[in-house]
């Protein structure tokens, strides 16, 4: 591994961390606003929460599968960190794989394993119920999500993320393929189990997959969730919003601005919308979103054949 690569990786992780912090802080601000408490203190809430969880002791339940549970909580933030390796910041990705879109998908699917390991490992009914809920949700969102990713790849004729971003010189893919864009955002919320897709961690099952977590384990899980959401928002920019393209500022500034805007929309939507239960979402996903994304892929394929994009 070369020296500049290491620096790029470090920078990428710092930026991802900052975006994750912003996500956590923004949702805290929205919560404070809706409960009528002053929102200023919420900007430091993730920091204070981190400190609180760091000094807190781990709880241990009898018969817990500690090994799987620990692997799970570490795997979750790692999945987000590995997913961003292929996202170009302006023109520069940490490693611009020729199959970057597939890489992102594979890394984000690791969340399935992570959440199930955590839920199972806690040896608690609620943990297992939450874990299985997340897999059911995964089966619901994953196919439309894959079609959304493929559609962007078809539009650019490449699975390399920077190629897809460069291909949107004249018009953003969000305009060419609005269905794929919306489905990608929805599944971004779903795979990071953020509201409104947070039923796997719902209050109705005592915190679900995270029911037994405390201390640093809970910190890692929550960090992983915010990092995953940030990674989803960052990925939506090169796929659908023209990447770093924009007037006046250099590419990386636009990339960050667009990512922050997408994050604000996602967190805001999660804050406003009622929770979506996975069995409801499954029917919507398979009967509405899946046909729509297939038709969208067909339309984009025809655009490409006609030479319109």
């Amino acid at each position, binding site marked *: 591994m070369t020296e500049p690569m290491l620096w790029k990786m470090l920078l990428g992780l710092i930026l991802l961390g900052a975006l994750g912090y912003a996500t956590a802080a923004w949702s805290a601000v929205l919560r404070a606003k809706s409960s009528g408490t002053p929102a200023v203190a919420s900007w430091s809430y993730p920091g204070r929460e981190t400190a609180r969880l760091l000094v807190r002791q781990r709880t241990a339940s009898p018969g817990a599968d500690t090994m*799987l549970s620990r692997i799970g909580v570490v795997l979750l933030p790692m999945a987000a960190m590995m997913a961003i390796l292929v996202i170009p910041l302006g023109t520069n990705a940490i490693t611009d794989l020729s199959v970057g879109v*597939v890489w992102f998908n*594979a890394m984000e699917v690791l969340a*399935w394993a992570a959440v*199930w*390991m955590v839920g199972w490992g806690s040896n608690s009914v609620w943990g297992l119920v939450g874990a299985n809920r997340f897999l059911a949700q*995964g*089966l619901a969102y994953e196919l439309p999500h894959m079609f959304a990713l493929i559609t962007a790849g078809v539009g650019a004729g490449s*699975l390399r993320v920077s190629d897809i971003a460069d291909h949107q010189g004249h018009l953003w893919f969000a305009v060419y393929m609005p269905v794929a864009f919306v489905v990608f955002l929805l599944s971004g919320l779903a795979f990071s189990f953020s509201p409104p897709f947070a039923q796997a961690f719902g209050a109705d099952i005592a915190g679900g997959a995270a029911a037994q977590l405390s201390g640093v384990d809970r910190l890692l899980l929550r960090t992983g969730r915010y990092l995953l959401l940030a990674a989803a928002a960052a990925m939506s920019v090169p796929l659908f919003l023209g990447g770093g393209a924009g007037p006046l500022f250099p590419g990386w500034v636009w990339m960050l601005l667009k990512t922050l805007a997408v994050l604000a929309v996602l967190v805001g939507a999660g804050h406003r919308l009622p929770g979506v239960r996975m069995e409801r979402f499954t029917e919507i996903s398979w*009967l509405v979103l899946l046909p729509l994304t297939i038709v969208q892929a067909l339309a984009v394929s025809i655009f490409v054949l006609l030479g319109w994009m």
Partner: protein
Amino acid sequence: MLEGVIFGICALGAVVAGITVFRVDSMARATFALLASFLFAAVPILLLGLSYLGILVVLMMVMEMLIMAVFMVMYMMNPAGLMPMKMVHNNKASIGIAVAVFVMLAAGVLLTPWPAAVTAAKTAAATTAMGTDADPTLALGMDLMGPHMLVMIVIGMVLFATMVAVVVLATDRGRYERFGDDLRRRSPDDPVRGGLGR
């Protein structure tokens, strides 16, 4: 050299993880040991330059094994696979079967006339015929099913039809249960309400 080291580590890792499947006492751990074995096996595919296939193996295996974990826990007889349990049964016969399969596969590795020099030429021929640069994924696809593409497509359709048929046969609720004997019910009578408000 580096490739050799990585291959060695992954080969060893895959075998060790495979053995672990039968040494652990929990359905979940066995599942994840098997998943680890598959992930180790994906790395040699990446080493061959088949990046698309290698990463696809990672993606598919993670999804598949997680669904499998749920089903394995669900279908175990004693308290639902939730308790510690032995991962081996029918020991003597399975040792015999395992040895026979291993010998067969190992013999296949040694006896197959691997096209050492031919592969490069074929790859070049296949890729120039398709008018792209040397893409190993394409070359592999041409090699595996070039002349049999129609057969493969038909098999794919048959497999898909089989899956649909099996699901239809396995479910105990058909359209008559959902929409009534004369199929006149406006909204289906389902035990769990879906999201479309029907």
